[in-house]
């Protein structure tokens, strides 16, 4: 985009201010961490004592990623209202994640003094090293790859909109994330998520008013869309792209299945009491629903205001384009902070999780169980910084292997964790061999299906993947020995 120097300056001021606030949060959180005796519990879990509003916002911000701000509205621009219908399968995300894992998950994680999600799984599956290694490696690989992809998205956004060279955008953006996550740990992640969630929420309100005002009200907007292409007004998308079995499988992929994303499941461990969980369910549901409806609807109506995407840009930039076209530059800068916030708040949770998997789940369990507090705290921060640095380096010029793995990251995480968590909590007979079988069958079938059978029976591959993962888990568990009685007592006993 060709913007004048003056306009660029006005865009940059709110953006830089925003980044400065996030860094400050990192500093503030590190001061709290210093005072804490239980370093690991604070650095990786924030001592699990967050209130309802904070839990709701961190869940929302972690969940709402680049795709909700860039890819999603871009697809809505092309496909029309049918894509909003697809996005609305995410409305229950908050009450489903918190409600199905439920208080039982919080009770158990306190019983076994878990600091990570994998701590819970390790205890539940009789300390089986294969389960721990598979789950940890699954988390490390899939999450790191997903972070690379989000970094690439963030830097590209800087580049298209402000003309800042890709590398500089990446270093600025990645550098800020590295600093606040490394310094402040999980508390910094959660607190910055709250700010980022609020920025996103008000950003969407502003966008909705702006597009409908510009398009001459809802009725005119819809009528103009109908004239462009009547298919934009149907639930089926353009040329019947959104078929019923396919859209219905999004209830599995982006609603129920997200319980299997470790960064989401972890958030069901960190509320301080029952009351916080209740209010997090309410606030989370309203905010997620509003963001999803608003962002995608704005993407649809954008078609009326910007009938064609300018040359050199893609549909993905429709929201930032709208902001630049319709708002004074300083406000546009503030709005551009919103997709940036969406990316940062997703990436930070994933980075801290990767670091916890390496330090807490692998190093302390298998390599050096006797490490002392000081060593642990140094290592935790070192690994958080190192992981962030590696990810930034990969994002400079992403190797094709990473691009390839990223296609399977979301589904791969669900295939790895979904049944381990659900059956571990609600089925006494679930055991380690079953868990191993479920991970192996799930991940392999997701990759193979995505390549060779893209819409099995008209659905998204995740549906058949989870069915196969369940069957493997069930049969192998029944064919092998039940878990130790001690484990069952620990998890179910009074």
């Amino acid at each position, binding site marked *: 985009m060709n913007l004048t120097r003056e306009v660029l300056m006005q865009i940059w001021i709110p953006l830089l201010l925003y980044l400065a606030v996030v860094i400050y949060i990192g500093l503030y959180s590190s001061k709290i961490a210093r005072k804490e005796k239980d370093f690991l*519990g604070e650095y990786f879990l924030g001592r*699990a*004592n967050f209130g309802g509003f904070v839990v709701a916002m961190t869940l929302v911000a972690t969940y709402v990623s680049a795709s909700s701000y860039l890819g999603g509205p871009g697809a809505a621009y092309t496909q029309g*209202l049918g894509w*909003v*219908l697809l996005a*609305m*399968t995410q*409305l*229950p995300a908050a*009450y*489903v994640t918190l*409600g*199905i894992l*439920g*208080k*039982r998950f*919080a*009770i158990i994680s*306190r*019983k076994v*003094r878990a600091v990570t999600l994998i701590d819970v799984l390790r205890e539940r599956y009789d300390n089986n090293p294969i389960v721990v290694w598979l789950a940890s490696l699954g988390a490390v690989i899939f999450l790191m790859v997903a972070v690379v992809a989000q970094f690439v998205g963030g830097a590209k956004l800087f580049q298209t909109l402000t003309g800042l060279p890709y590398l500089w955008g990446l270093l600025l953006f990645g550098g800020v994330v590295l600093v606040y996550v490394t310094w402040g740990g999980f508390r910094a992640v959660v607190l910055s998520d709250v700010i980022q969630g609020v920025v996103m929420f008000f950003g969407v309100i502003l966008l909705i008013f702006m597009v409908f005002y510009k398009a001459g*009200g*809802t*009725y*005119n907007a*819809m009528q103009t869309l*109908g004239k462009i292409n*009547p*298919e934009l*007004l*149907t*639930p*089926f998308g353009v040329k019947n792209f959104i078929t*019923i079995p396919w859209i*219905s499988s999004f*209830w599995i992929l982006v*609603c*129920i299945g997200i319980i299997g994303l470790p960064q989401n499941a972890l958030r069901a461990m960190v509320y*301080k*009491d*029952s*009351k916080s969980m*209740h209010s997090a*369910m*309410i606030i989370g*549901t309203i905010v997620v*629903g*509003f963001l999803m*409806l608003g962002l995608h*609807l704005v993407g649809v109506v954008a078609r009326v205001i910007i009938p064609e995407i300018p040359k050199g840009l893609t549909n993905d930039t429709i929201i930032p384009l709208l902001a630049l076209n319709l708002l004074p530059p300083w406000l546009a800068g503030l709005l551009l902070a919103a997709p940036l916030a969406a990316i940062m708040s997703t990436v930070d949770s994933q980075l801290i999780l990767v670091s916890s998997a390496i330090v807490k789940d692998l190093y302390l369990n298998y390599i050096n169980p006797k490490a002392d507090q000081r060593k642990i705290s140094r290592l935790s921060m070192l690994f958080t910084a190192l992981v962030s640095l590696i990810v930034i380096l990969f994002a400079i010029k992403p190797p094709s292997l990473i691009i390839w793995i990223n296609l399977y990251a979301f589904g791969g995480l669900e295939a790895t964790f979904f049944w381990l968590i659900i059956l571990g909590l609600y089925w*006494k*007979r679930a055991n380690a061999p079953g868990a191993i079988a479920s991970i192996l069958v799930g991940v392999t079938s997701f990759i193979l299906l995505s390549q060779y059978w893209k819409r099995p029976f008209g659905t998204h591959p995740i549906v058949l993947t989870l069915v196969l993962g369940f069957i493997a888990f069930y049969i192998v568990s029944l064919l092998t020995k*039940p878990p130790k*009685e001690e484990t*069952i*007592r620990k998890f*179910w*006993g*009074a």
Partner: protein
Amino acid sequence: MGQGGFREDPRYAQTRKEVIVVLVLLIANILWWFIFAYGLGSKPPQEYSYVLGFPAWFFWSCIASLIVFSILVVLVIPMFFKDIPLDSESEGGERG
């Protein structure tokens, strides 16, 4: 399962109830979404009726569902969810 004699954590009965409530809410949500979207939206767009400027199927399945289920969550949670302690009694809230 041959584990006679051990007493289940008394809080689990309540957690089971809460999970069922969430599942019922989820199923209602899916049905609402599906019935309005395809019940009202399957005819040709020329025959659509409109609510507040939006095609009726869209208004009911996307906009109204957000409002209705937000209200339901607000009503249902205080009704069925109980304020139970999360820490184990034996360890008396050391971590919280």
